[in-house]
């Protein structure tokens, strides 16, 4: 391939594909796209741990695997613990001169259920113990693998198979658990939010995280056309709309310091995002107004955190 043709993107991005085609993800799967990009950013010297979930099922039906890197799955709630075990073992083996000192990235990639619900305890334990690993939550906002049941990461108002909208129900009545804030509360050195609609941002964050010593957390919104009820070709737009409406702000928390990656003088109305998804189709204007208010509040709170650190000069 002659160099002159690869002028734009390909030149900047690792061409190696370590999440290979042949995986069984749905058409237009944001999760598969995110994994592909994360692995491009991480490079060859990487080990991936996954809990049970969509990602595991679509990528490893025996005797096939979509992973070109070493990959391990043990169970649903323990990806962070397994990753911690690998990291601890490498450390011990190196201390005993049984392993060379070449850096190996350890990345756990789980879904929102495996992270914010059943895997939260193991994740908290791993953060607290300070394992040198990156945990990426690919948040598609419900248990998609088992058929779109709600999780603690399902947004307010979304209709899922276990939080269905109905005559006396508006769907999910709880607010999305703020996993990035929970991670940041562990005082780990690096926390970020990301979305594959912003591939460079996502990849940069993965690289920044992997350069940082200690536990790192990236909360990545991934679009699920099947679970969200949206057109498969719309997912990139939807990710951008989630960010532009303030529903899913992109930010980093570096050593406790908040940094907003994308600021907007004025947020787009949340309906711009909600209207393309059948999971929100039942919402009444009053419900949407509640969401709008909450999004603005949280946006302001986030901006205050960013400002606060600017003023106090915390580094």
């Amino acid at each position, binding site marked *: 391939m002659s160099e002159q043709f690869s002028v734009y993107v*390909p030149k900047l991005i690792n061409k190696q594909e370590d999440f*290979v085609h042949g995986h069984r993800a749905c058409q*237009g799967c944001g999760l*598969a*796209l995110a994994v592909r990009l994360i692995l491009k950013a991480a490079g060859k010297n990487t080990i991936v741990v996954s809990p049970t979930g969509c990602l595991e099922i679509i990528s490893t039906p025996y005797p096939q695997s979509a992973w*070109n890197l070493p990959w391990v799955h043990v169970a649903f709630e323990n990806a962070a613990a397994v990753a911690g075990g690998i990291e601890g073992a490498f450390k011990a083996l190196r201390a005993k001169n049984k392993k060379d000192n070449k850096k190996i990235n350890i990345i756990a990639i789980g879904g929102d259920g495996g992270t914010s619900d059943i895997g939260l305890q193991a994740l908290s334990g791993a953060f607290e113990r300070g394992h040198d690993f990156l945990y990426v939550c690919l948040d598609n906002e419900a248990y998609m693998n088992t058929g779109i049941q709600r999780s603690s990461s399902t947004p307010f108002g979304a209709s899922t198979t276990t939080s269905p909208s109905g005559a006396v129900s508006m769907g999910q009545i709880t607010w999305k658990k703020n996993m990035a804030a929970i991670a940041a509360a562990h005082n780990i050195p690096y926390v970020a939010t990301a979305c594959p609609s912003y591939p460079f941002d996502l990849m940069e964050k993965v690289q920044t995280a992997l350069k940082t010593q200690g536990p790192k957390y990236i909360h990545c919104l991934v679009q699920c056309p099947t679970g969200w009820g949206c057109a498969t070709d719309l997912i990139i737009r939807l990710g951008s709309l989630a960010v532009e409406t303030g529903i899913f702000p992109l930010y980093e928390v570096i050593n406790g310091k908040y940094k907003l990656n994308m600021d907007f003088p004025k947020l787009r109305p949340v309906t711009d995002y909600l209207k393309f998804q059948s999971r929100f189709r039942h919402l009444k204007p009053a419900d949407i107004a509640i969401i709008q208010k909450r999004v603005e509040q949280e946006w302001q709170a986030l901006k205050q955190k960013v400002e606060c650190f600017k003023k106090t000069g915390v580094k």
Partner: protein
Amino acid sequence: MKEKIIEIRWHGRGGQGVVTCAELLAKAAIAEGKYAQSAPSFGPERRGAPVAAFLRISNKPIYLRSQITHPDIVVVLDPTILTLPDVTAGIKKNAIFIANTNKLLEDVKYILGVNVNLGVIDATKIALEIIRRPITNTTMIGSFIRATNIVKIESVKQEIMTRFPTNYETNIKAMIRGYDELEMETDANRTVIKEKKDGKKAMPKLPKWRELTIGLTTKAGSAQAYKTGSWRSLVPVTDATKCIKCGICWVYCPDSARYQTPDGTYETNFDYCKGCGICARECPTHCITMQEEKE
């Protein structure tokens, strides 16, 4: 057919309502006082992937929970999967086979390679006209009823009304057109072909227990052997003259199914493209259009 259990297998793609077909007909048969049993097939494949559903109907109680391996009737909802060996696997001699296709009846028979009692219907066209989406399940139910006469169209109507309270009218309309427009072979105009032998060895030879890897380890990247191109119903067509070689389509493809050609423009890897349409949507010069898949 009185004492017999009739076994029907439905084929389509995940998300097309294949399971709904089996369910609606099972419920309709049960409402008529018959015995019926519908079951989905479970697997790792997702939306767009070829899937199957199973239906048994009988006048007597059904004491069977096993899978249907030798169907009396096969219905295929998606025209692009007629070539897959799964659709004819284990099919009984002179079984009824109903295909959604715009091809001629004789041609379909050659594609299938087995001497079934064939019926064809362009259900996609009907569905697009009436439902405005290529969801062919209710149309195919109509054709099924016409070809088999196992359940009454009235009882299925009831089930459709219960199932689709807001859009049952279009679905019933589609069903009736499916019923009316089915082209079925008769004894008089039957096409007989020389059967392909390979149609029967659809099952790949599976390893013995000693041949499994210790602890079930798997070779890295081996999923490439699984071609997901058959999941596609829409295909991206690239106008290379408009391509500015930016690579956006390549970056955003969840299936890494776009690649750079020697001249720097991008093309689709049809072995793996699932037809999601992201590349077409995101291309800054709109050089990609999604078109209906042709076999």
